């Protein structure tokens, strides 16, 4: 189904009436333009005792993820030391919006990143965010209550699992083979770093738009669909080399991360995770093309991601590999 605000309002009201067992009206519904993998709706109801809600609707496999693992993670994390939105419903039935979706309570604060236009403010927020990243990586999986999710025995196993996961997505969604990416897959499998630190919670998509800020404090980390239990160097490299570029170049960000992380950041290991993350981004991006071409989602941004985005990350993967070989 295409996004149509009035239809979505009716759909959301119908679902909430069913879920809450009483008639519910949606008084305000806003689609967030940011976020590529989910149609994200902020919904205000006529129920005085009901929080504002955030609907995250799958888009037919965009970026290669599903809602269930993310919802289970939020259930495990909510109320613990890593702040996340309160999960409310996971709905697999496509009758409401055409795709599975999850609903969380809206966290008070702002998830937009207009502050990036104000360099001084952006640097203050960057430091706050990086401190929260360090805290996230400090807790053991057991301390966070994640044992039921299946904790890999070490970072080598978790890295192999992540490689399998992303390679599978590439195989499912590609149209032709990309030799440069195929070389990277083979290289990544042969050069998995030896385990040096415990398995930790990785957010997987640390980004300026993926936390909620209120009065200078991180109220919640959101958009956990790429999360995994693995080597926290994945998060470090992802933020420094990919999404952190919204704040500035990688080196100063890596210096800040070195201040908060309890492990050494650098060397071949960091290079490995830089390459891994470019590969991961390329695999995620190619998924959008097939869901567009098969009519499962006809947002035109899907084409931009699946062509320009995929090729861009493929080239970055190959160039970083050349750094490794040079």
């Amino acid at each position, binding site marked *: 189904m295409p996004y149509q605000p009035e239809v979505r309002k009716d759909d959301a009201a119908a679902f909430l009436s069913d879920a809450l067992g009483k008639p519910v009206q949606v008084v305000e519904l806003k689609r967030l333009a940011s976020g590529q993998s989910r149609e994200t709706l902020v919904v205000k109801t006529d129920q005085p005792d009901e929080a504002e809600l955030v609907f995250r609707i799958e888009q037919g496999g965009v970026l290669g993820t599903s809602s269930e693992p993310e919802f289970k993670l939020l259930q495990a994390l909510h109320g613990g030391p890593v702040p996340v939105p309160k999960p409310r419903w996971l709905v697999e039935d496509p009758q409401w919006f055409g795709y599975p979706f999850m609903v969380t309570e809206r966290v008070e604060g702002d998830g937009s990143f207009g502050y990036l236009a104000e360099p001084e403010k952006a640097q203050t927020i960057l430091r706050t965010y990086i401190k929260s990243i360090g805290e996230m990586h400090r807790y053991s999986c057991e301390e966070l209550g994640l044992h039921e999710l299946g904790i890999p025995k070490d970072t080598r196993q978790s890295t192999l699992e992540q490689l399998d996961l992303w390679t599978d997505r590439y195989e499912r969604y590609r149209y032709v*083979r990309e030799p440069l990416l195929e070389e990277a897959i083979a290289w990544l499998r042969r050069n998995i770093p030896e385990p040096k630190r415990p398995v930790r919670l990785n957010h997987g998509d640390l980004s300026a738009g993926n936390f909620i800020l209120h009065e200078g404090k991180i109220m919640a980390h959101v958009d956990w669909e790429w999360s995994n239990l693995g080597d926290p160097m994945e998060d470090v490299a992802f933020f420094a080399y990919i999404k952190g570029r919204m704040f500035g170049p990688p080196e100063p960000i890596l210096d800040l991360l070195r201040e908060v992380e309890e492990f050494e950041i650098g060397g071949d290991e960091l290079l490995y995770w830089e390459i891994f993350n470019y590969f991961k981004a390329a695999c995620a991006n190619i998924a959008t093309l097939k869901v567009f071409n098969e009519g499962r989602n006809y947002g035109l941004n899907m084409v931009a991601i699946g062509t*320009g985005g995929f090729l861009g990350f493929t080239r970055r993967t190959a160039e970083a590999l050349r750094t490794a070989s040079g």
Partner: protein
Amino acid sequence: MRPTSDELIVGIRNVLEDVLIPELQSDWAQAMGTQMALMLQHLEGRADREPDFLAGENAKLEGVLAKANAALGDDAVAAPAPPAEAGLEGLREHNEALRQAITDAIHAAYEQGEYGFHDLPADRLGITEDLMEIATRQAEFWQPIGFTYPGRQRR
């Protein structure tokens, strides 16, 4: 016949940009409108461009495979036969088969010997620069689709 496909595409894009997009209310609708303008810009001339582009890329890939096979010696991989079907579909199928063969060659190179962290099969086969050039040309083909809008280029 006039207007040609390209003239119609340009006309549609002009209306989209001058008449429709300014009237769109939400951020989402405006983002989609801008993406539509990009798609239309890409479509102008694509029907003429694509066969030449694919034929050129296939010739380049055939050269890459020949170079890789020369380096592989006895472990050379099978080169795909030229396309049985003329036209765009044949070119696409041949392109896919060539990419598969080059991937096989990269794996065959990995099987030939020991590789360290700073060591890559495409470099040993001498095909890195060619593959990078092919990837660069691919990205150029898809212009102006991407995350930034270069601004309108009216005719």
